[in-house]
């Protein structure tokens, strides 16, 4: 696939953090692509490296982070790793927008919604009235009723679900090429969550924007995403289209994650499946496969060296010796 079809193309990204205990290898050899107009879901449990990945894309890593020299992050044909200060400013918040779990991370409590939205357009040669008009139209588009009048309201005058809608409107104001949503509905009740997901589906038709959707909720990934990336302890262990991932998962970790989800178990029973053991220490990695200490399917090659990425078929691949030996 050529880069022009992919808004984002991450190749062999490795990131470590210097810590008192030694080098913590938070991301190892990450490859991922976000094709034009597609929604790519990232699933993974806490500590798997989702935030480190997003921060790498925006070059917002903590000062103790070290990015491996081989790493490439190609965004619309440009290498983010090579970008200077002003390019990075254009990238953050304009070419790439973010939606967070807590809408208040993005909203200023003491500035009216209309003023915050107009501020986003500071680079554009529009009159104040035109900016307000754009803001009101955008609010209407994300389903805020009476949008013109509500421009003068402050964040606390909106409910949680409405605030998240406003954040989505703000994220779309600059017409970004990539929208990154980091657990955008985790703080919401299920009915509000369903409404926001429905809104995101609608918007994707209208805005032709590609999206990276981070969530640990498998149900949301299944409903919204075209492609799915499964991360475990700093590696992409499996990726493919949403049907391959949910119906033909190959990596033992993906398979177990699907089995654990209470929403996928229809019979009422009292003991739920779990993944025994815990995530390995990223300062002291196992010699073989990263999942081997917890893997029920482990066999001889697994303890010797880490598996590479093996094709299952088409765009579906998994980092597991079982796929190679199948």
């Amino acid at each position: 696939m050529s880069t022009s079809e992919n808004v984002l193309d991450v190749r062999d990204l490795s990131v470590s953090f210097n810590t008192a205990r030694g080098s913590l290898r938070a991301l190892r050899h990450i490859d991922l692509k976000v094709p034009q107009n597609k929604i790519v879901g990232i699933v993974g449990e806490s500590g798997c490296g989702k935030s480190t990945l997003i921060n790498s894309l925006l070059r917002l890593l903590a000062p103790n982070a070290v990015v491996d020299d081989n790493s490439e992050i190609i965004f619309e044909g440009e290498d983010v790793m090579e970008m200077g200060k002003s390019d990075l400013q254009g990238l953050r918040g304009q070419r790439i927008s973010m939606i967070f779990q807590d809408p208040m991370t993005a909203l200023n409590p003491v500035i009216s919604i209309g003023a915050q939205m107009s501020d986003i357009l500071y680079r554009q040669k529009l009159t104040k009235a035109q900016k307000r008009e754009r803001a009101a139209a955008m609010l209407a588009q994300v389903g805020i009723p009476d949008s013109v009048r509500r421009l003068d309201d402050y964040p606390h005058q909106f409910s949680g679900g409405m605030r998240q809608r406003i954040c989505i409107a703000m994220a779309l104001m600059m017409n970004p090429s990539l929208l990154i949503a980091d657990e955008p509905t985790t703080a919401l009740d299920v009915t509000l969550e369903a409404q926001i997901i429905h809104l995101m589906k609608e918007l994707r038709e209208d805005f032709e924007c590609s999206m990276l959707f981070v969530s640990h909720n498998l149900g949301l990934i299944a409903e919204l995403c075209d492609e799915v990336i499964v991360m475990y302890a700093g590696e992409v262990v499996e990726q493919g289209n949403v049907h391959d991932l949910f119906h033909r998962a190959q990596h033992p970790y993906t398979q177990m994650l699907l089995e654990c989800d209470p929403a996928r178990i229809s019979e009422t029973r009292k003991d739920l499946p779990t993944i025994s053991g815990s995530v390995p220490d990223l300062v002291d990695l196992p010699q073989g496969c990263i999942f081997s200490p917890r893997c029920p399917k482990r066999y001889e090659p697994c303890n010797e060296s880490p598996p590479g990425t093996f094709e299952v078929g088409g765009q579906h691949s998994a980092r597991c010796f079982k796929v190679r030996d199948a």
Partner: protein
Amino acid sequence: MPDLLEVEHLRVRFRTAGLVQALLKGLDDPFIDAVMDVSFSLAKGETFGLVGESGSGKTTLGRAIIGLVQAQEGSIKFEGKELVGLKDSQYQEVRRNIAMMFQDPIASLSPRKKVRSQIAEPFKIHNIKDKDPDQEARRLLKLVGLHEGFLEAYPHQLSGGQARRVGVARALSLDPKVIIADEPTAGLDVSVQGEILNLMNRLQRELGLSYLIITHNLPVVRHVSDRLAIMYLGRFVETGTTTEIFEKPAHPYTLGLLAAVPEPDPG
């Protein structure tokens, strides 16, 4: 024999505006009903799930049962004894038997106290001298599947699942008969959710505990509850066995809630 816990026609009101403000604004009723005409019972060894969205009154109901907010009407009986109207000092005894597990375990643990003192704290609060707090802390940690090394850990050094286990240990410290668990799995990874629910189930079998589980997570409550109530704007709109509610939901609000749960299958 009466049930362990019996709640009848319970009503909890909160004042929304001061009296002067209410007069100025011409409000007839400066109160809201956080809990309205709620009745249910909990038997020994049973798990009752209380499902509703934020603001529906679930947490207020839980707090009313352990006497942290006052009930205006109705009755709460524990082992046949009326709790509504008890003085705070009389409620202390009740709180030994009905323990509360709070929503966010890391936030509800004091950041500067080691696990050892978090778990032993209830012995201090209740002025219990006939037990060695240190020995008890060790026993409780073992019961929830954590090794002794955790006694010296601070809350920020715990993973989400470990912090939940400490929360369970603390709730168990005074040998309660009922545990009210507010969102016991919120914010946990899927694989860890199962561990905590399985732990709670094992403790229920071993210790004969009864649970009142407060949650907005329908898939979770389906696997652990014997019976359910669906709460909306302070009222129970539907109650029944878990199977009845999932298979034949009657109230439109219940139907809406069930329909909103995302289907973990792309089709």
